[in-house]
């Protein structure tokens, strides 16, 4: 390895990219995306919460973006105070997405067509057989009842609380002072209705014989904040894409372009040895991709730049993608073939990962660098690195080494032509 030759080769790559505006534009676009991601931080996104609401709000496709709660004041002395109670208790993360809307009694009975991502809940009171009734209709997106979960969690609890308050006030007005209405089991608990149902069963059975139904205890906890957080997921995608772009796309296509045009031959005939030509590319592309990735990560979250985990992850990914890129570059003869190779690789890996995850096929995904890489980078970007992520990092390192060895072996067999 002679320094002056390496320097000339690396500078040549740099000048070629400087003369290629498309590549620069794409790099700037990636950086701009990172800037936008860190500047615009809408309410309800991000933060450290892991509630069901947030999980629902991060589902980009499907789900419910807005929920109308429609009601009519006619024929009812319950609905106005109930709506007032609901209005007061909309949780902050749903505030942008819940609209309470008054309607007249005729409209509320009509079927209404809603846009995708919009759901509605209708409250309607009427009297039948001399008794007051309250009818609640939930209209959810077709086939996706679960998307209503965050809204229903709020609605059922607060309706229960609200109806109890209204009942207590009415009883007070009737001078009933000793009515001891049972409060719901735990107010901040999504499972209050379930608990109450078990408790009611036990209560009723106990009236006949004590101890027939056991006391049911349920706990439900998040798994250490492992929900996918959208913003850091996007940041991870940008970082991975920057590296993929430099090492798996740019490197093979530019290399094959040089080969196709004969300039690679011209360089090979100069005193530069094949090893030096290869080394210059090894130096240039991962550094280019790594620098771009580090800038993006740094814009999103400057603190990651001081963590060992991030840099070892970045280094591993760069090395792995470099191996994949060099493999494609040695196998492809023309620029077009290299481009197709990069695309086919991306598609087939994504396909394998999707098939494995949807069909629950074990182990196979572990063989893909792309399975471990996003987990490693996402963990460091969202600041939640656990021991499992170190395992992912180790696996990624092994796969990166495999790809580098493969690329080196192929290069040796097929040569620089």
């Amino acid at each position: 390895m002679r320094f002056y030759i390496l320097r000339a080769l690396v500078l040549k790559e740099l000048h070629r990219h400087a003369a290629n505006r498309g590549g620069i534009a794409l790099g700037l676009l990636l950086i701009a995306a990172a800037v936008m991601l860190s500047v615009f931080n809408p309410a309800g996104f991000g933060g450290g919460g892991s509630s069901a609401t947030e999980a629902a709000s991060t589902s980009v496709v499907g789900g419910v973006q807005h929920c109308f709660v429609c009601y009519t004041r006619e024929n009812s002395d319950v609905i106005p105070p109930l709506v007032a109670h609901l209005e007061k208790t909309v949780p902050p993360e749903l505030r942008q997405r819940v609209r309470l809307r008054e309607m007249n009694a005729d409209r509320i009975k009509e079927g209404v067509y809603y846009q995708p991502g919009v759901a509605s809940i209708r409250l309607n009171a009427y009297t039948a057989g001399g008794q007051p009734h309250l009818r609640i209709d939930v209209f959810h997106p077709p086939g996706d009842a679960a998307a209503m979960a965050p809204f229903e969690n709020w609605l059922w609890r607060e309706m229960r609380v609200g109806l109890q308050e209204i009942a207590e006030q009415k009883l007070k007005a009737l001078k009933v002072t000793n009515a001891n209405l049972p409060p719901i089991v735990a107010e901040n608990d999504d499972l209050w209705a379930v608990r109450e149902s078990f408790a009611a069963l036990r209560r009723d059975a106990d009236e006949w014989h004590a101890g027939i139904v056991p006391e049911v205890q349920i706990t439900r906890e998040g798994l250490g904040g492992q929900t996918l957080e959208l913003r850091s997921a996007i940041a991870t995608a940008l970082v991975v894409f920057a590296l993929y772009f430099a090492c798996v796309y740019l490197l093979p296509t530019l290399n094959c372009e040089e080969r196709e045009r004969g300039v690679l031959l011209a360089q090979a005939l100069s005193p530069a040895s094949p090893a030096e030509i290869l080394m210059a590319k090894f130096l240039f592309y991962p550094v280019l991709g790594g620098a771009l990735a580090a800038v993006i990560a740094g814009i999103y979250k400057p603190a990651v730049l001081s963590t060992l985990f991030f840099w070892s992850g970045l280094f591993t990914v760069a090395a792995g993608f470099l191996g994949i890129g060099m493999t494609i570059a040695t196998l492809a003869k023309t620029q077009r073939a290299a481009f197709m190779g990069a695309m086919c690789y991306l598609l087939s890996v994504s396909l394998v990962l999707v098939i494995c995850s949807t069909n629950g096929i074990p182990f196979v995904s572990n063989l893909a660098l792309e399975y471990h890489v996003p987990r490693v980078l996402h963990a460091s970007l969202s600041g939640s690195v656990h021991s499992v992520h170190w395992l992912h990092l180790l696996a990624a390192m092994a796969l990166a080494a495999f790809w580098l060895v493969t690329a080196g072996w192929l290069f040796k067999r097929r040569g620089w032509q």
Partner: protein
Amino acid sequence: MSDAAIHIKSLRVQYGRFTAVDNLDLEIRKGELFGLLGPNGAGKSTTIRVLIGQRRPTGGSVSVLGHDVVREWARIKPLFGYVPDRENHFEEFTGNRNLEFFAELYGVPRLRVRECLEMVELEEAGNTLVRGYSLGMRRKLLLARALLHNPRVLYLDEPTANLDVHSAEVVHRILRERVSQGATVVLTTHDMDEVEKICDRVGIVCKGKLVALDSPLALKQRHTERQTDVILATGERRTFDMDRDADRQALADLVRAGATASLQTREFDFHATFLKLTGQAFE
């Protein structure tokens, strides 16, 4: 033995089943300007590709300046310059930048870039992107690149294709100059005049085989068609072969009888010789 720069011994090159070079034996002397001639697809470029080490021979051996091309490739690389048949520049760089890059690889001072550009009369186009070069300019830039490190051996695959008369002259002058300084030059061409004018020796190849090897002058002496074209007083045209007794006699009789209006001996025609040698001569 020691005055041979290039030894080609029983060289065979095959592309799959197709034999492009078939048992070629050739020695090219030091300080010689050697021309390789042959019809399209004869195997000229293939032979040069073997000489520069781009293509491995299927059989036989090739050595340049005493080094085996395959085994000691790295050692002979800096000794030769190569002008390929297909131009290969960085289109997005200027002519200057293209040469500077290679000058850096060869460890040659920047000054030499200017010199080489001037040599091929491209100094004014030096700061233009190669993308904007004409075909002839691209060819000349290839030559400038091959000259950067003052190589002892120069391989040129059709160096004057697409060049105007003046530029071709410039290239010829440069090549003769290199040869006079002791360099060995091997070029391929389809231009017969060029061969006659500048080559010390020519090899004619056809279908991968060497069919003639000599100096242009010797080829001329051997292959000049000794024929005389005559227009008779009656207006009839006839051709007499000077190697045949009967023809000579007949011509002498006509001249003596004063029956000839004009009489012309044939010039040496390299083109006809070439066609004859490559087995494609017309009757």
